[in-house]
C-alpha cells in the first residue's frame, strides 16, 4: 500500500518550469530517496508536500486522501536550510516548535525530555541555542522534527553538518523510525547513504523525472555485465586479477577454470554515484 502518492504534479515560477509532471509512489513504512543535482526541483517538491507552496496542477495523496491543512500534524520536516532562534533556550524552543505541530505543552515537555535523555543532551535544556555548536543544534532540530511522531517524515539533506559518529546515530534513528511504522522521504547528495538506507529512489533533473525504482532494480538495470575475477593460473605465475565484460558468465567461468584455479568471481554493479553522474550528465546534453 502506498502511503504517499504524488500524481502529475507541475509547478512553474513565472516562465520557469520547476517541476514537470512528477509522479511518485511511496509504499508505507519504506524509505524513499529523492535524488537530483542542485536546482533539480527537489526542494520545491518537498515544499509542496509540506503545503508551503501549492502545485499548479496535479495532486498529493496521503494515505489515499488529498492533503489537508490537518495533515501538518502527520508530517515531520527537516529542511535543508534549517536553524533555530538563537536567543531562545533550547527546551523552550523545542516545546514551541512541538506546539506548532499541534502538541500540548505538557505532552511536548514530557516527550522532549525523553528524547533529550536518549540523545544524551538533557543538560542543554536551559542553554541558549547560540551557545550550542552547529552539530549540537542539528541534533535538537532532528528531535523537533520527529517529536510529534509523524507518519510521514521528510528529511532534506539530513546528514549535512554532522560528524561521522552522529551520521551513524542518525541513520540508526531513521531506520528505527521506519521500523516503528513511519514512511520516510529523504533527499540527499550522499549516495552511499542512499544505498544503505533507501528502498526506492527517484532521480530528477531540471524538473523532470529521469529515473525511478527500487535501488536493487536500478542497479540491475544499469549493470554493464562486467565481472571481477581472481584466479591462480596453472603455470604457477601467482594470483591474477581480471575485470572482464561478458554477456555469458557461465562461459566465462568455464573458460577460466580451464586455465587455472578460480579464487573469486564477482559481478561488478554500478554504484548509485556512477548511475547518478551518468544519467544527469547525459540528460544535461
Amino acid at each position, binding site marked *: 500500500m502506498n502511503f504517499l502518492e504524488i500524481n502529475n504534479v507541475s509547478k512553474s515560477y513565472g516562465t520557469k518550469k520547476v517541476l514537470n509532471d512528477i509522479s511518485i509512489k511511496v509504499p508505507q513504512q519504506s524509505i524513499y530517496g529523492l535524488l537530483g543535482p542542485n536546482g533539480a526541483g527537489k526542494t520545491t517538491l518537498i515544499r509542496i508536500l509540506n503545503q508551503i507552496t501549492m502545485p499548479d496542477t496535479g495532486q498529493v495523496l496521503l494515505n489515499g486522501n488529498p492533503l489537508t*491543512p490537518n495533515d501538518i500534524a502527520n508530517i515531520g520536516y527537516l529542511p535543508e536550510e*534549517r536553524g533555530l532562534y538563537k536567543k531562545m533556550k533550547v527546551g523552550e524552543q523545542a516545546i514551541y516548535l512541538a*506546539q506548532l505541530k499541534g502538541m500540548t505543552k505538557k505532552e511536548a515537555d514530557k516527550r522532549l525530555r525523553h528524547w533529550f535523555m536518549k540523545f544524551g543532551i538533557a543538560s542543554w535544556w536551559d542553554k541558549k541555542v547560540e551557545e550550542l555548536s552547529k552539530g549540537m543544534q542539528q541534533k535538537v532540530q532532528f528531535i523537533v522534527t520527529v517529536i510529534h511522531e509523524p507518519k510521514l517524515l521528510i528529511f532534506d539533506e539530513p546528514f549535512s553538518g554532522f560528524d561521522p559518529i552522529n551520521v551513524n546515530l542518525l541513520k540508526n534513528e531513521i531506520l528505527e523510525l521506519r521500523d516503528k511504522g513511519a514512511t520516510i522521504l529523504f533527499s540527499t547528495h550522499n549516495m552511499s547513504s542512499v544505498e544503505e538506507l533507501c528502498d526506492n529512489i527517484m532521480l530528477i533533473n531540471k524538473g523532470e523525472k529521469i529515473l525511478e525504482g527500487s535501488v536493487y532494480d536500478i542497479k540491475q538495470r544499469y549493470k554493464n555485465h562486467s565481472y571481477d575475477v581472481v584466479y591462480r593460473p596453472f603455470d604457477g605465475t601467482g594470483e591474477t586479477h581480471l575485470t572482464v565484460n561478458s554477456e555469458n558468465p557461465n562461459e566465462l567461468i568455464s573458460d577460466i577454470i580451464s586455465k587455472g584455479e578460480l579464487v573469486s568471481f564477482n559481478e561488478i554493479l554500478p554504484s548509485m554515484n556512477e548511475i547518478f553522474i551518468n544519467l544527469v550528465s547525459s540528460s544535461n546534453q
Partner: protein
Amino acid sequence: MKIGIIIEREYLTRVKKRSFLLITFLAPIFFAALMFLPAILMTQAEKFDEKKTIAVVDESTMFIGKIDDTDFNTFIYLNDDIEDAKGLVKEGIYDGVLYIPATTLTVPTNAEIYSEKQIPMSVTSHIRSSMKNVVERQKMLASGIDPEIVKASATSINVQTIRMSEKDGEQKSFSEFEFFLGLFLAVIIYFVIFLFGAQVMRGVIEEKTNRIIEVIVSSVKPFELMMGKIIGIALVGLTQFLLWGVLTLAISGIASTFLPTQDVFSAGTIMNEPIAEMGVETTDSGTLTEIFEIINSINFKDILWCFILYFIGGYFLYSAMFAAIGAAVDNETDTQQFVTPISLLLVIPMVSSSLIATAPDSSFALWLSMIPFTSPVGMMLRIPFGVPIWQVAVSVAILYITFIVFTWLASKVYRTGILMYGKKVSWKEIFRWMKY
C-alpha cells in the same frame, strides 16, 4: 489556535529581554525627573541663596531709600566714598556694593556692583527695575504727567477665541493647548509605528537569517506567522506604554511627597517674578481656572477613541509593510531602499504639523487626514480642534480597508520572500510577488 502560540512566543521572548525591562523601568524615572527637576533645582538654588546685604553708594542721591529690600536682599545706604565701601566688602561686612556715580546728565542710567562673589541675576534685575521705576517717574514728573494716571491706565487685554459648533453651542477654544495635545498624540503614534514596526521587520529578518522560517511555515501558514508576530509585538508595545504610564505616575507621586509643596510654589513665584516685572499683569481669572476650562472644553473620550482606532490601524498598516520588507531582504542593511520611501509617507504629516494646526480645516489638512498612510498622524493633529464625525468615519474606513488590502498583499510578498535567499530584491520584484 496556532496564532495564539505564535503571539505568546513573540510577546514573551521580547518582554523577558533584559533591554525591555531596563527601558521599561528606567524611562519612567527619566520622565519623572524631567517633570520634577526644574522644581527641585529651584528650591535647591533658593536654599543656597542666603540673605545678602548690599551697600549702596549713591552719588546722584536720586535713589536713596528707593530700592526696596526683598526677602533675600537688604540694601543699606552709605555716605562713604566708593573706595571705602569696597574695603568694607572685602572685609566681609557687605556682600556687595552698588555704586551709582554722579552724572552731569539729569538722569543717571548707569550703575556698578562690586562684590567678591557673583551677584545673582535676581538681585541685578531687582535693582534695575527699581532704578527704572524711579527714573521713569522722574521723567514723567518733569514732563508734567501724573505717574498715578499712567499707572491707572495700564490695562491688559485678554482675547479669547470662541468656536461656534452646532453640538455644544459656543465653546471657548484654546488653540495652543489643542496643538500640543494633537502633537503629543501624533508623536506617540509616529513613534510607535517606527519603533515597533521596525521590531516586526527585524523579527522577520531574524527568522530568515536563522533559517528557522522553513520549519515554522511547514507547521503554520505564513499569514498566521506574520499576523502573530504583528499582534505579539503590538502587545509588547501596549505593555510598555501601560507600564510607563503607571510607573511615571507612581514615581512622580512618591517624588512629590518628598518635595514640600510650599517650596515648589515659591519656586514657581520666582519664575513668574521677571514676567510680573515686565509689566504683564496676571489676570484675575487665574491660571488654574483657565486650565480647568481648557480641559472641560475638550472631549477627551472622543479623542481617546480616535487615538485607539488610529493607533491600531496605523500600526497594523505599517507593520504589515515592514513585515513584507523584512521578508524581501536578507539582512538589515538591505532594508534602507524600502524603508526610506515608506517612512517619508509618515514624515509628511509630522513636518506639516504646525501647518495643520494653524489651519486644521484646510484642504491640505483634510487630505493628510484622509490618505491612509498619513491619516494616523494627520488626523491626530486635527482631532483636538474638532473634526466632523463623517470625516473621522470616512478616514477610519479608508485606513482599515487599506490595512486589510495591504496585509493581504504583504502576506503574498512575505510568503514568497521568506523562502528566497541570497537574492537582491528590487521594487519590481516585490510587485511581481504580489501577483503570485
